[in-house]
């Protein structure tokens, strides 16, 4: 069957901490790096764990892809303790990513993220710049040391719930309007995004089984009723379409 899907072993090449407990892991995965588009994800398999774990592609440069994560469970704990040369099984790129080409009239893009919602944003910035858009990042977190500071030289606005860095309040409240809003973060944040900009493109995080559309485990409730699959129809949705 024709598809751009790839399944390879990918060795870890580097790791760096970009905020307290938030790690960017770099893997050698040349074919995925060459084809991944912003908002797409990889499903990583680890020895000793039955199911794969889905991660947005954070960056894709040369032979390498990056993902960003916090150690929240046994699987992510294993990932952050990996050494260079250790191997994961990488399935991807998966899902439908952000859309930059829809309208020629788009001039500005805001990349709005809360916490680990920064995951798809560096690739989104790359693809937005390539589409000729002026990019502004809005990073939100609970407190200053949980803010991911990477913004690749674009304009950046910081927002913290406790006011320890930048705007005191939510990333949504701190964000300017733009022709295209790309958002990723907790469900509560995405709901606020949908209230302010129903046309925004929101990348959801869900539990996921297969990543390839067959298990129906990653159900996303839709405003029109029913569910569809974050792995296949998503993970990027029109914000107003998510229930």
């Amino acid at each position: 069957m024709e598809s751009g899907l790839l399944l390879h072993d990918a060795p870890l090449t580097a790791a760096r901490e970009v905020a307290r407990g938030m790690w960017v892991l770099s893997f050698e995965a040349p074919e995925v790096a060459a084809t991944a588009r912003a908002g797409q994800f990889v499903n990583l398999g680890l020895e000793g764990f039955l199911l794969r774990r889905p991660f947005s592609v954070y960056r894709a440069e040369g032979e390498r892809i990056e993902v960003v994560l916090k150690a929240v469970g046994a699987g992510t704990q294993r990932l952050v303790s990996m050494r260079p040369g250790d191997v994961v099984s990488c399935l991807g790129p998966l899902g439908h990513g952000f859309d930059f080409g829809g309208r020629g009239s788009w001039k500005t893009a805001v990349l709005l993220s809360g916490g680990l919602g920064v995951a798809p944003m560096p690739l989104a910035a790359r693809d937005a710049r390539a589409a000729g858009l002026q990019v502004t990042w809005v990073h939100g977190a609970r407190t200053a040391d949980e803010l991911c500071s990477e913004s690749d030289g674009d304009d950046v606005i910081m927002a913290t719930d406790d006011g320890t860095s930048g705007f005191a309040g939510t990333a949504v409240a701190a964000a300017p309007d733009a022709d295209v809003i790309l958002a990723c973060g907790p469900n509560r944040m995405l709901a606020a995004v949908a209230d302010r900009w129903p046309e925004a493109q929101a990348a959801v995080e869900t539990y996921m089984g297969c990543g390839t559309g067959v298990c129906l485990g990653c159900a996303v409730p839709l405003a029109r009723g029913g569910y569809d699959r974050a792995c296949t129809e998503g993970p990027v949705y029109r914000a107003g379409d998510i229930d």
Partner: protein
Amino acid sequence: MTLDMSVRLGGLSLHGPVLAASGTFGYGTEVPLLERRALGGMVSKGIFLKPRQGTPPPRIAETPSGMLNAIGLQGPGADALVRDYAPQWAKWDFPVLVNINGESAAEYGELTARLDGVPGVAGFEINISCPNVEQGGMYFGNDPRAAAAVTEAVRKRTRLPVWVKLTPMVSDIGVIARAVEAAGADALSAVNTFVGMSIDLNAYRPRLSFRTGGLSGPAIRPLAVHLAHQAARAVDIPVVGVGGIMTAEDALEFLVAGCSAVQVGTATFVNPNAIAEVHDGIAAFMAAKGFASLADLPRYLPRD
């Protein structure tokens, strides 16, 4: 030596003993990366007569060597299946059985009548074992009279092969197996998922919104091998083994334990090409042991 991997069972000719299990392969139009030459057949995602939305998320949870799921038989209904999927199946070189569901024996019969004769539908797998629906499902599968009534209702509406997928949540699977055999089943699929529960210690509640889910994966394999073996000892119709098969060795355990074929399910979630790897591994085992055909594989199936 030419290996004969073909199987005749339950009214169907399969070119290999490995089928895709219901609910793990969609309607067969997804699952990229699979080498389809290896597919003996496919059982569709379970379908009801009418469309169903399924259960709210979270629908899955990982457990040691397994996963719990409560999808709730989300599906587009019989009309959409006939319109969108069956025409594609009719062009494929392996048979597609439709996993059928209902809230009453009459509804199973009605669904069978709707699908019988539709090009692309090669047979039926009666699901009397889904743990994740409020009405029907597993209820039919743990009462021999109800199981037989559903099987009869389907049998009356079709001359196509009728397989019955059994639930493991019974005290004696042989009783159910004999009841559906007597009611006209051509083969049995043994077994569906086990009912399980997992608790979220941050939320102090079950990790699945449906509270319970069906446990699959390697965690259930020895349980499933035992139940498939018990079913095979109880009946004269073929048994298709299913439950936690990840490798060819796992599949061979079911075959030696008395099964005529196997279904691979959860493994496909992890490795989209799992079915082909299982098929090829069985072939390699047969070649190494000098068996020319699957019929030559010794079976451990003492009669009571």
